[in-house]
């Protein structure tokens, strides 16, 4: 058996831009013993703003939407365009687990066409496990770690109406992908069940007029709730491929406007609360006075701290450490 490098060493390699460390990094952050023994924290410590001298440079993007709308196919096109532009890309694809068996079929990478010899593309599929909200337990840590080495880090999750909330906690920019002719998104947006994403994407425009109508309906729905700014982009991921450049421009524009430091800080705090909740349950969260109170408490912590350190702060506060 090969020896696994330590979390700290992996963190240093990522900091130096070694994208080849990605598979081992993922094996580490997905491993429960490594989380418990502090290896994951050691890794994240090396890539925290304190160690990097600022926020990690990557653009972290969340892509979410209902099953089968075409998220992975779209990612395949985006990855190609980013690579052509010289940007390295890591994709973290999260699939739901079977409630019955706990196992999962991970099929996203099949649709994300990429050159196996290209070291600048990394794709990892992860099962969501028992966590609700679409994110696998290790996805936050993985996204934070990889954003030290890759230019773009994408998190793909399945769902609509709920999951984008969690993705928003790890991503700088969230794109929700919808299928032409699916009315639910429209309803969710109007009724506020769903938060307004940073970018809305309508897929499968090759299927014709339905898609263009869907785009117009979405724009109208946004107007009706007073939103004139959110871009709605129509794309096709099958030949003739369309809209990819527009989408990249919309994603880049959102990132350019963003206060990255503030959003990442919020993300780390929200991540710590989610990890605390998953580990210790509702009762422990109530002991802290609930979610909002927990977030508020973290507001006093050092902004440069990594998630496991924040989680520990909460544990100490709740007396469950």
């Amino acid at each position, binding site marked *: 058996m090969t020896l696994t490098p330590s979390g700290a060493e992996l963190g240093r390699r990522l900091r130096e831009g070694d994208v080849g460390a990605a598979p081992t990094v993922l094996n580490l952050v997905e491993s429960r013993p490594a989380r418990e023994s502090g290896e994951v924290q050691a890794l994240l410590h090396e890539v925290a703003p304190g160690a990097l001298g600022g926020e990690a440079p990557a653009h972290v993007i969340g892509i979410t939407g209902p099953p089968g709308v075409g998220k992975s196919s779209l990612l395949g096109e985006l990855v190609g365009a980013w690579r052509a532009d010289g940007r390295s890309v890591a994709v973290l694809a999260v699939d739901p687990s079977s409630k019955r068996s706990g196992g999962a079929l991970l*099929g996203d990478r099949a649709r994300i066409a990429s050159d196996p010899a290209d070291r600048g593309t990394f794709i990892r599929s992860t099962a969501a496990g028992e966590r609700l909200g679409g994110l696998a337990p290790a996805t936050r840590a993985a996204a934070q770690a990889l954003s030290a080495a890759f230019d773009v880090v994408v998190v793909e999750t399945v769902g609509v109406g709920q999951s984008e909330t969690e993705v928003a906690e790890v991503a700088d920019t969230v794109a929700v992908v919808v299928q032409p002719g699916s009315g639910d998104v429209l309803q969710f947006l109007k009724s506020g069940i769903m938060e307004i994403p940073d970018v809305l994407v309508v897929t499968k425009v090759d299927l014709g007029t339905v898609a263009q109508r869907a785009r117009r309906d979405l724009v109208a729905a946004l107007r009706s709730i007073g939103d004139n700014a959110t871009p709605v982009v129509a794309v096709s991921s099958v030949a003739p491929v369309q809209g990819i450049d527009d989408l990249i421009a919309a994603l880049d524009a959102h990132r350019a406007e963003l206060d990255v430091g503030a959003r990442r800080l919020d993300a780390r705090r929200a991540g710590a609360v989610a990890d605390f909740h998953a580990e210790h349950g509702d009762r422990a969260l109530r002991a802290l006075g609930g979610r909002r109170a927990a977030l508020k408490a973290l507001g006093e912590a050092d902004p440069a701290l990594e998630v496991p350190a924040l989680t520990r702060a909460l544990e100490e506060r709740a007396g469950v450490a």
Partner: protein
Amino acid sequence: MSDHRLAERDRPWMMRTYAGHSTARKSNELYRGNLAKGQTGLSVAFDLPTQTGYDAGHELARGEVGKVGVPIAHRGDMAALMDGIPLGEMNTSMTINATAAWLLGLYIVAAEEQGVEARALQGTTQNDIIKEFLARGTYAFPPGPSMRLIADTVAYTVTEVPKWNPINICSYHLQEAGATPVQEIAYALSNAIAVLDATRQRVDPELMGQVFARLSFFVNAGVRFVEEHAKLRAMGELWEQIGRERYGVADPKHLRFRYGVQVNSLGLTESQPENNVQRIVLEALGVTLGRNARARAIQLPAWNEALGLPRPWDQQWSLRIQQVLAYETDLLEYPDIFEGSKVMDGLVAELVEGARAEMAVVEEHGGAVEAVPYMKAALVDSHRERRNRIEAGEQVVVGINRYAESEPSPLSTGEDGGILVVDPGVEAEQVEALERWRAQRDADAVERALDELRRVAADDAKNILPATIEAARAGATTGEWAHALREAFGEYRAPTGVGEAAAGVPSCEQDALRDEVERVSEALGRRVKLLVGKPGLDGHSNGAEQIAVRARDLGMDVVYEGIRLTPSQIVTSALQEGVHVVGLSILSGSHLELIPDVVAGLRDAGVDAPVVVGGIIPQADVEPLREAGVAAVYTPKDFDLGRIMGDIVALVAQRNGAAAGA
């Protein structure tokens, strides 16, 4: 004249043998031998590179050239294949799909060179792409352009090669992928509707009756031969209705349901392989018994189907089965023997009703093209249920889950292991021959022809055939033709169906296995993760799908990307996904070339996960694979998926120091 006897004995159906391997010349010898034995038509098996549009020498062609069929790269190969066979008289069926328009082009040019005009040609190009997406795997282009190529072929042949069957809608492969009789009927007929709808836009409306008449079917028949016969009658009934109601066809001649058959092979076993002969005979009865739904053409698999490729003697045995049935028995002396049968009428009514309902579901999905993901998942599901029934002993398979004790079989103990083994040297030979071909042809003429082909491909209003035939005349190759079209149309990966397959309800035994998966996962610190990989051009996905679904149902995380990956793609996936074990599945016979490549690639990349292999692996090849670093090899005789899963979990535990009790 009596009601229960025919005035004159019927003529027998067309008898064929699905054959071809190594080179065009070798296959030509084989065909002549078969014709001399009383075979009445040809059925050409192409190798996988030819079927998927790659020339010998392409990375994906490795290990596959000349293996499961004949490589045909250009008009010279086609001429050699048909040398001495008068194409004006022969009836040739070609199992060719994504590249059907091209192979038809080569055949037309080969006939031209023999002085036979296209109008005289008789035969069939399989040319059915939807079932390639669903079950067979030799597709090349996305659905839209693929349907156009089919419609173009139909539109062209209906006036220019009028005796040709431009498409054989296949239900055969659906049953081989697990379809129930109802699914087989419903998906095949929905497929036919998609083809007719696409063609309707490309031909003179006046010709729709003739177009309808040119569509023929290629069906399956399993060992439940009474129900299978009813299935064929049901298909005939529904087909006539579709013709009348949907396409306004009135001429009874045009409305006739015409079909050829290959009988079921999925149920043929590796253990006690002699039992397969009984199965084949009964299945042949299923498609010949009733005169009103009798097959037009039949080809039978051989007793050694699950062992490997049949030798000439094995194929002769199967041809003789047909001949005994047609010439020794009294089968052909009577009118339809089921007319007025309550049982038959009842079965037909049941199937018609079930198929109508399922066709409506396909229609709701937007028709057969749009419903491919739905149908694929439904097939994986039916196959999963079939495996469960066999493992539970509810569906008896003699020699497998009942009466498994056996004397040693003298049939497979010969020096050749009872199968045909293709000389691996033919690949290098074909690569060289191709270089010689390219060196002697008029390169400018080829370039001009390919340019024209690209231009026509980009213009949806044009028919692809004339430019294709011109490229064939100029000496272009199969790989060049397909490459030009891949550039114009793009490529495609069909859905795998596994993600949507229902989670199985576990038996007690499976429950115990789940506990073990859970225990090992806890010990590892993360859930056991398996990569199921299909290297090379092999499209046999059943085994990989069933392994993937079962592993998921036992609690593993499973990465499965579908068929047709290069070894380096599989290595990259294993590395990036951090899997604990890699499972490779190959049934097409290229395991000795590809599996050592994957294992070596994994070790070079620093992946130390163990590799297990499954598929059609002759006993003689097991040791070389083990020497290459493979931990375990499984073949069809290991029918119990639960056992295989138990082994895999134990292997992962042992490699990671988490063995039970350790």
